[in-house]
């Protein structure tokens, strides 16, 4: 068998093939032909090089948003019963209230930022979560549902990673939103627990904000109830639980959500 013919049976080299008579003859040829053996090795290395080094960029955020907008328009024509997520924002008579809320939120952001600055001037790691928690008074995309499956579907399609809402005894899931924390998009899940509101954040991170063990911080406001914050990280996500509930409730939630 000639080299060219043998290579037609052996290339690409990284796929199993039926060892028929021609393939066996080609293998026999390659075992004796140093040029073919080298070439097949090169082909295998080329495949490995492509597989391991080819950059696989994630879809840009604007593409993600346009795709889901397009699908949302399609869904608008879908049969009744299909769950829809909605874009919340100031509309009609609620606009003035929203403007007031925005002003209040910005004030609170300023207060919160000031209040949790450490004596040395450094901001505590949880500041970014508090900012987003307050910013949520006036924005953005959300799903109002107590169905963890529907919420998980919403979060997965919006964020591109599967996020399942924690099921915590005594805590009732109410809604979920997409948040922006320190430039990173993540999930904000809203619960009620002990008759009070509780917010749980899961944002992709590198474990920089917190350690693996949930720790409680108290954020004091000048003219509002103290807000408690529990932070932890599992290496892939940074997690935060915020509420004005007593610390024990937040820690119970954090432990059920995966913190230890």
């Amino acid at each position: 068998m000639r080299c060219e013919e043998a290579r037609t049976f052996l290339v690409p080299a990284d796929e199993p093939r039926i060892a028929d008579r021609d393939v066996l003859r080609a293998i026999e040829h390659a075992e004796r032909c140093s040029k073919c053996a080298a070439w097949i090795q090169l082909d295998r290395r080329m495949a490995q090089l492509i597989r391991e080094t080819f950059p696989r960029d994630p879809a840009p955020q604007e593409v993600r948003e346009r795709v889901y907008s397009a699908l949302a328009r399609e869904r608008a024509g879908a049969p009744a019963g299909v769950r829809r997520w909605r874009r919340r924002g100031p509309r009609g008579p609620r606009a003035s209230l929203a403007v007031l809320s925005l002003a209040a939120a910005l004030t609170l952001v300023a207060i919160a930022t000031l209040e949790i600055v450490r004596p040395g001037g450094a901001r505590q790691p949880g500041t970014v979560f508090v900012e987003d928690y307050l910013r949520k008074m006036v924005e953005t995309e959300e799903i109002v549902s107590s169905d963890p499956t529907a919420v998980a579907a919403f979060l997965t399609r919006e964020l591109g990673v599967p996020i399942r809402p924690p099921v915590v005894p005594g805590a009732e899931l109410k809604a979920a939103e997409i948040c922006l924390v320190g430039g990173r998009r993540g999930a904000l899940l809203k619960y009620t627990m002990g008759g009070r509101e509780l917010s749980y954040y899961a944002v992709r991170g590198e474990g920089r904000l917190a350690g693996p063990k949930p720790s409680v911080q108290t954020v004091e406001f000048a003219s509002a109830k103290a807000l408690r914050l529990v932070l932890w990280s599992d290496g892939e996500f940074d997690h935060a639980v915020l509420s004005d509930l007593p610390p024990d409730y937040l820690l119970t939630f954090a432990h059920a959500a995966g913190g230890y």
Partner: protein
Amino acid sequence: MGAAFEELVGVHLNDLYGTALCCTGSPERAEELLCDVLRETFHEFPPQEGAQGFRLWVLEMLARACLERVRHRGTRPSGVAETASAPAEIEPAAPGVRLPEPGTPAYAAVGDMLRSALRSLDVETRMSVWLVNVLGLRYREAARCLGVSVQDVMASLARGRRRLHAELADKPGKAAGAV
């Protein structure tokens, strides 16, 4: 059904966008193509395909729509069938040149060069390389996506790798020679 479709799109969106970008070569056209194909397939996804079958099914829809558009625009594809029966195509372009060794700086730096080299291939060849070598599809799956035979995919891959090899060999200080 819509929610399930959107959830699956979310899981695979990076691969889908990468495929559209690989095929069209333009972020704008890739986005337009992706939105069009997902809109068209939104009501068509057969439930029996399930989550496992979704990726291959939607990649097939995307690849076929993309090839159709590229061909319609008049970009002359050098058909994979032409090379399938041409043994000369499987000859190495630069047999004396080595590829960078795994673990070396040159190996890590070769990704961008590969991306640029991939653009120089005809659309069927680069789609074969993308689907098999980058996304990890099996040959028969790539053949289904591209609407060709497994032999065509194999020949196309061989040709693609040979040309990528030649592209890297032309840049001795950056990749192939920096061993």
